[in-house]
Every structure is written in C-alpha cells, then in structure tokens.
C-alpha cells in the first residue's frame, strides 16, 4: 500500500522511506515514541498531508493529489481522531448522515436508517438527537467510529483513539474496535493499548524518528523485540 514515502516539515524529515503493505482484513498497530511520525503517517495515508515522493495506493489505485477525485477517495478511508472531531453544530444522527447523503448521495431516509443501525451497534442509539457536547468522551468517540463506518470505508485509520479519554471509558471504545477487527475490517491503529494489540492485531509496526524500525506479530514484538530502540521504548511504557 505505501512504498518509499517521504515527507518533510521544513527541515524535519518526518517520514523516511516508509514501505508498508496492509492486506485486506488485516489489523495493524502502529506504536512508537511521541513525535516519531505516527499521526503524520495516518494523515498521509488519506492525504490530509501531502507527501513529496513515493507512492500510496489503495486497491492498486494511486491516490489522486487534488480535488474531487481525492475527496471521493478519502471517503473510502475512514479516519478516527484522538479528539473525536464530531461536528459540534449537528446532532449525533446528522453527524453520521452528512457524509452518506452529501458524498455517497444516499437518500436521507435510507441514510438515517443505516445511521441508527450503526449507532445501535456502537451503543449510543438513545443519544441520536443530542449534540456532541452533551455526550461523554467515550460516547463521542464511538459516534466518531460510527460516522466513519457510515461511509463503508475500505480501511479505517485510528489515531490514538483512546488517549484523550478517561480510563473508565477506554474499554467501551476498544470493545467496539475489537468487534470491528473481528468482523474483518482492515484497520491501522495508532495506540499504546497493549491489551488491545494482543487481542485484535495481526501485526505491530514500531516507528521511531520517522522510520519503520521493526514489524512483528504482537506476541513476538512485546515479548522479544529485536531492535534496541523498541526494547528501550517498551521498557519505558511497561514500567508505568
């Protein structure tokens, strides 16, 4: 999916020759120290950030660089942000139907019906008429997942979906994600939740300083990391 991708912010080389292939139905965890480029990687995959060289393809199709083509392609890549980013002026239900109606051109009635099914699935259907600010963080994040799912994406990107949440709400979000993984959704998840990684992931990708340093299945990575940097990093998060 990604090959030889490079990106700079000014002098900073945030992504250095990233090669990464994600297979359909695979769940890939991206892990690494803060500032290593994990968010940038996610944002580059759906081109919220432009990149300078290399190529990113989805189902063999190169990402278009601008305009409507790109907008359409973004609809195929679901994105869940650390800070939820629900549309603050729209109800929960409207948050979910906006994309399907305006981008996918679904009938409002059909979109609403589908949205209610998705809300049911993530457990916030009874809040459909409320506004985002009236929901807890965990509920908002589950709505954000439903919003992304409503576009029927080919792949879902999660950028630290639980790190803005109070501890007691983390599991309700991870449970939804675990179900999603089990149902065969292709997922790229930036997270430090090792329990989730062990339970749901097929592969762990360790990033440091803009490079993919190591890839392995979760068990191997957490118990016997090969690289010095990964050992270092795991030592730090495990002692917490």
């Amino acid at each position, binding site marked *: 999916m990604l090959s030889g991708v490079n990106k700079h912010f000014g002098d900073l080389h945030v992504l250095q020759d990233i090669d990464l292939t994600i297979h359909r139905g695979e769940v890939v965890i991206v892990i690494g120290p803060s500032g290593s480029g994990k968010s940038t990687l996610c944002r580059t995959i*759906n081109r*919220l950030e432009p990149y300078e060289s290399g190529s990113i393809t989805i189902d063999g199709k190169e990402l278009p660089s601008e*305009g*409507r083509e790109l*907008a*359409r*392609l*973004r*609809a*195929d*890549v*679901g*994105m869940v*942000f650390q*800070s*939820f*980013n*629900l*549309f*603050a*002026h729209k109800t929960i239900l409207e948050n979910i139907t*906006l*994309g399907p109606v*305006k*981008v996918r051109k679904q009938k409002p009635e059909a979109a609403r019906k589908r949205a209610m099914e998705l809300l049911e699935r993530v457990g916030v259907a009874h809040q459909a008429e409320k*506004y985002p*600010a*009236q929901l807890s963080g965990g509920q908002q994040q589950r709505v954000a997942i439903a*919003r*992304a799912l409503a*576009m029927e994406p080919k792949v879902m990107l999660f950028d630290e979906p639980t790190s803005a949440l109070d501890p007691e709400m983390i599991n309700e979000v991870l449970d939804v994600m675990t179900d999603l993984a089990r149902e065969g959704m292709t997922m790229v998840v930036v997270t430090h939740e090792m329990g989730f990684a062990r339970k749901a992931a097929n592969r762990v990708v360790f990033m440091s300083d803009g490079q993919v340093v190591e890839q392995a299945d979760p068990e191997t990575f957490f118990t016997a990391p090969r690289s010095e940097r990964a050992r270092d990093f795991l030592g730090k998060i495990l002692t917490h």
Partner: protein
Amino acid sequence: MAEMLERADFLAAFWMTLRLAVLGTVGALLLGMVVAIMRVSPFTSLQFFARTYVTLIRNSPLTLILFFCVFGLQNSLGMRVGDDLSTQNLFWGVVAISVYHASFIAEALRSGVNTIPLGQAEAARAIGLPFGASLRHVIMPQAVRGAVAPVGNVIIALTKNTTVAATVGIAELASRMKTSIEFFPNLLYLIFVLVAVCFVVLTLPTGLFFTWLSRKVAVQR
C-alpha cells in the same frame, strides 16, 4: 411643535433611514460573506483580494467611500440607476454603506471561523466532503453562529453610520435634524431627543435580538 413635525417631515426621514439601514445591512451581509469565503479559500489570489479589500476599505472613512460613489461613479462617470434623483441617491448611499460595512462583516465572520477548531475541517475532509461542501455544511454554519454577536455590533454601527448619507443630500434623519434646527432653533433639545429616540427604536431591538440569537445558536464544545 406640530408645525415643526409637519414641515420637517420626520416620518419620511425615518423611512429613509430605515431603508438605508435595512438595504445596507442586506448588502453588507452578502458582500461580507463573499469576502470572508474568499479569505478562507485555498486560493492565494482570492485570499489576497479579500485581504486587500478589508484593509483598504476598513481603513477608509465612510464619507470618502460615499463621495467616491456619488461624485465619482454617479456624477463623473454617469453611472445612473433609476430615473429620479432621490432613487439614485438612495442607491449609491446603500452601495457605499454596504461596501464599507462588508469589510467589518467579513472580519466578524473570520473571527467566527477562528473559533472553530482545526479538527472540524479535517473531519469534514476525512469523510470525503469537497472544499465547497465542507464550507457549506461544516465551517460556515459554525462561523456564522460564532459571529452572531460581532455581526450584531456591526449592524448597530451601520444603522448609526447611515447619518453620513446626509453629506450627499439624502433626506434621512440627520439631514432633517439639521434643517429643523435651522428653522426651529427654540425646539433644539426636542429635536435632539426626537432623533435620538428614532435611532434607539432601530438599534435597541437589533441589539437585543442579536444577544438573544447568539445565545440561542451558540455552538457548545
């Protein structure tokens, strides 16, 4: 006093002020919205145009813009609208008031845009909305809600600034005030109070309405 009211025809003057204020507000809102959209668009040439417009117009006196319209465009270049003089004057008065206050409206809207977290636009792009659609469904509705109070202030200022139209002979309240004072100097204070009341009748409800509206539509985050 009855004679004064009749001679000065305050009712007609009030009607003229009202038209200047309402039409000027409509024009300023429309034009200001366009300029604000240019300002936040991804096209540098449009951004540049919008920035220049705001800087230039906001820092010029309204009187200058009005004189430019009436003496420059209407009289010298012969851009005439309608057949009688009073319609023409009203037209150019409204244009000048709209053009001038649009720069303030654009700034108010931009301050509304600035209250929106960056994540809102990113989320809109991430679900595949093209630029125009994310502007229409996500950014502008929130910007307008955030800008209600400052826009209200601009409209109140605009209402009072309609008095500048007196300088080009538009028969609105301030010009009637001036002639009445000349004819009825003994009623000076009464005339002041009368004109003040006329403006308060226009601006006070506007202010109350916008305060109420800004509370009602405020976006909770």
